[in-house]
């Protein structure tokens, strides 16, 4: 299992990286932490002509609070975010979800934006971005745009990013006063989730995000339901997500997890708020 041949560009600035994407289009791919992409190269599921390594572009390693959100540049590795001072206060959902993203040995290299770009339906960070109504900052050699998380993820490992665009940063809103919780079921800790749930509870409503079931993470808003009304709402959501059967779990098991883990996550977020 060795990659097919490619040219390697060590970009020294964002402009250099974008110039290569502009010239080579779909033949060029960004290389960030490599924790998903190198596996695809080794298995020859991807055969780009040029790889553009962005990890030496210093300005991309920025992480800053900006207008009620945590803006994380494309060079920020998952381990750095997890170790950030005060993360559990500033962005409690991320602090709870990140330990489930792979292992210490993959978080050390893998980036936050790379996980968003990869758009695995079971991945934790895309789920958090959708649940928190975050944004993706996209850039080409000529234009910049900001896309809402819901519009960014378009299908199984498919996104609204064009071939000549790169993710420059992603913004995770940091609302105050909400209860948060994150839970997931996987065969082993660090494996991709069979079902993952993220919940936000405010004084007026509940927002539940579900990963691992539909082709992309999906979040829904509910009023402050309780008891059987909450069960009914979760049951409706479980069917709406159109779960798949695969080698890891049956669709029926996934629906049951949405009902049970969804409820447990919401209850934990409520207790967290109280």
């Amino acid at each position: 299992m060795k990659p097919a041949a490619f040219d390697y560009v060590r970009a020294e600035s964002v402009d250099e990286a974008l110039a290569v994407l502009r010239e080579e289009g779909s033949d060029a791919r960004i290389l960030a932490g490599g924790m998903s992409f190198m596996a695809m190269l080794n298995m020859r599921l991807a055969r780009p002509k040029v790889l553009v390594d962005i990890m030496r572009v210093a300005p991309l390693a920025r992480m800053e609070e900006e207008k009620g959100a945590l803006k994380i540049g494309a060079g920020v590795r998952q381990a750095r975010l997890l170790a950030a001072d005060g993360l559990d206060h500033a962005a409690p959902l991320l602090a709870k979800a990140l330990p489930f993203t792979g292992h210490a040995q993959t978080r050390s290299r893998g980036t936050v934006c790379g996980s968003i770009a990869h758009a695995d339906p079971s991945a934790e960070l895309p789920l958090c971005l959708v649940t928190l109504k975050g944004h993706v900052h996209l850039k080409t050699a000529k234009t910049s745009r900001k896309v809402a998380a819901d519009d960014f993820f378009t299908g199984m490992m498919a996104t609204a990013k064009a071939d000549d665009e790169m993710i420059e940063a992603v913004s995770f809103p940091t609302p105050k006063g909400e209860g948060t919780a994150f839970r997931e079921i996987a065969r082993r800790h660090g494996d991709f989730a069979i079902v993952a749930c993220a919940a936000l509870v405010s004084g007026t409503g509940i927002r539940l995000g579900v990963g691992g079931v539909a082709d992309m993470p999906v979040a829904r808003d509910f009023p402050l339901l309780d008891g059987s009304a909450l069960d009914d709402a979760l049951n409706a959501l479980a069917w709406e997500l159109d779960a798949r059967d695969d080698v890891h779990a049956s669709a029926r098991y996934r629906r049951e997890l949405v009902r049970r883990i969804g409820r447990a996550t919401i209850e934990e977020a409520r207790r967290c708020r109280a």
Partner: protein
Amino acid sequence: MPRLSAAARHTVRFTLNGRPVAGQAAPRTLLSDFLRHEIGATGTHVGCEHGVCGACTVDVDGMLTRACMTLAVQVEGATIRTVEGLAPAPDRLSVLQAAFRRHHALQCGFCTAGILMSLDVFLKAEPDPSEDAVRDLLSGHLCRCTGYTPIVRAALEAAAELRDAQGESAHA
């Protein structure tokens, strides 16, 4: 902006276990293959080549790194540590290695180089870890022989021994 052509081999230089090394790599050459075939440092093992088993784990600039998921050309100028760098002398084991031996934390040894590197980096950051934290770290490795329990015991005992040694040197 360096662009390294697919058709050529390029010089890659880095520091390996305290010594400067250099070799030739095509852009697609994996760090694991570069270490083993170009440098001749065969202590780092290769299992799955897609990031799952952890056998190839090395320390690149203080970051635990899957050498099979890293290109040799990416580590130009880096400081790399591999299992060959753990023992203080050719005839002596490190505290962690000695604990592995005492506890039978290896059988075939295929996974061992990667696990030792993970624990070596981890124990520097967390000198007094809980058993849960050690098990969480080990989730990034597959061992088909030991059942992990001896590895956990060895790690906790090595951590205690390293703390004692630290305490003594602080009081000396």
